[in-house]
């Protein structure tokens, strides 16, 4: 039996690599290896049709997905309109549209 004193122990929001599930991320990297080339420049988010009005940040979403936090972004993924502008501007040739598609499929599967 546990007791409450009117407050609870705050949960940590840090990324704990040791405890995260990296299976989705590994699968994504297998299917679309070009995502490894991301340098975090932000071109994709800058040009994103959905970003200015929805707060959707494609760069952060796929970076966190790769860190092993796949589940946290289900709602975020719905904001993408698959217009593909992100892929057009990427200086490293990452097929971001496909990354987006794969993330959705992996989570849904």
């Amino acid at each position, binding site marked *: *039996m*546990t*007791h*409450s*004193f*009117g*407050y*609870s*122990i*705050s*949960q*940590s929001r840090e990324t704990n690599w040791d405890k995260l599930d990296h299976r989705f991320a590994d699968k994504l990297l297998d299917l679309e290896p070009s995502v490894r080339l991301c340098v975090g420049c932000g071109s994709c988010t800058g040009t994103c049709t959905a970003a200015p009005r929805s707060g959707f940040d494609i760069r952060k979403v796929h970076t966190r997905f790769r860190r092993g936090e796949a589940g946290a972004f289900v709602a975020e993924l719905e904001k993408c309109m698959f217009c593909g502008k992100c892929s057009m501007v990427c200086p490293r040739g990452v097929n971001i549209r496909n990354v987006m598609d794969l993330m959705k499929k992996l989570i849904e599967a």
Partner: protein
Amino acid sequence: MSVSKNWKNYNQQIPDDRYYYARSCIRQNFFPGSEKTFLTILQDLLGKDIYDDPKHTSCTGIAYHSDIIPFETMMTVVARHFSLMTEAGYKNLVPSCVTSFGLYNEVLETWEHHPEVETKIREMLWKSTRREFEKPEAIMHASDIIYHFRDIISDHAQNPLINVQTGEPLKVVDHIGCHYAKIFPSKGIGGAEFPIVLSGMVSSWGGQSVDYPERRHCCGFGFRQYLVKANRGYSIANSYRKFESMAPYKPDFIVANCPGCAMFLDRWQYTIGEMKNEWFGANGQGIPILTYEEMAGLVLGFDPWAIGLQMHQTDCEPLLKKMGISYDRDKKFSLKRKTILLNVLEEEIQ
């Protein structure tokens, strides 16, 4: 540019004698035997001149760090402390509390960079109390003094930090107060970077100091973090993080030099236990936590109840057994006992 960061920059010259003691407000409630133990060690064992001034007040640190009183008010109160010290004829200021230690240094540092602030505070003090003062020549925390005399204490040790059942050194984890080690790291012994003030005592007295990953993490006390109930979950989460980190090392006890840290690492163990049903220490009995004075007192053979161990929430008795210290359980909460502490008190009353 050579801002060289090395141990030499953190090794303070500690004056050998003539100290002006500044008590802590909260320690006298939380761990009431600690300060008396410190004075007893300095006066009776080491024969030092240390003045315990009854006119001294709180340094206002808690209120200051909680944004309750303004900077100028705090500085004026601190200026009055300096004035009391000047009046008593001392130059070496020894605060018992790490927050006072940080505060005194902060005031002096501010005055050094902004002499006009010092002038203003001198005026304010004069207008409010007709007092004047000289600035302290040295400020050292009381744990610095014990560290300084650790080898003499070791020579008088009756109960070294050794497990009498196994003959092994006791495993000790330390926690150094943030306001001691992180505000002005170079004004203490080793700062947060080379934390040796407590581990130096431990190894000098026969124990084994254990390094653990979250050694430098805050104990979770904070001021605003704890005082506001809505923030308390944040406070306890930080203590939990420390316990989680130290527990695998199976420490025999924790030693701290900060009033808040000792208090919170002691009390929160019970709270976490109640909240999560997760109990630390051997058989879930908790990891005892000692102030450095209590640790010194036990080493020197003082009566555990005279140095105030009955005031701890986490039971210290298993530790006393490990150290082979005999104690009278019936007298644990007896106020009528004749102890060093009360003897001294009675003498003072007479």
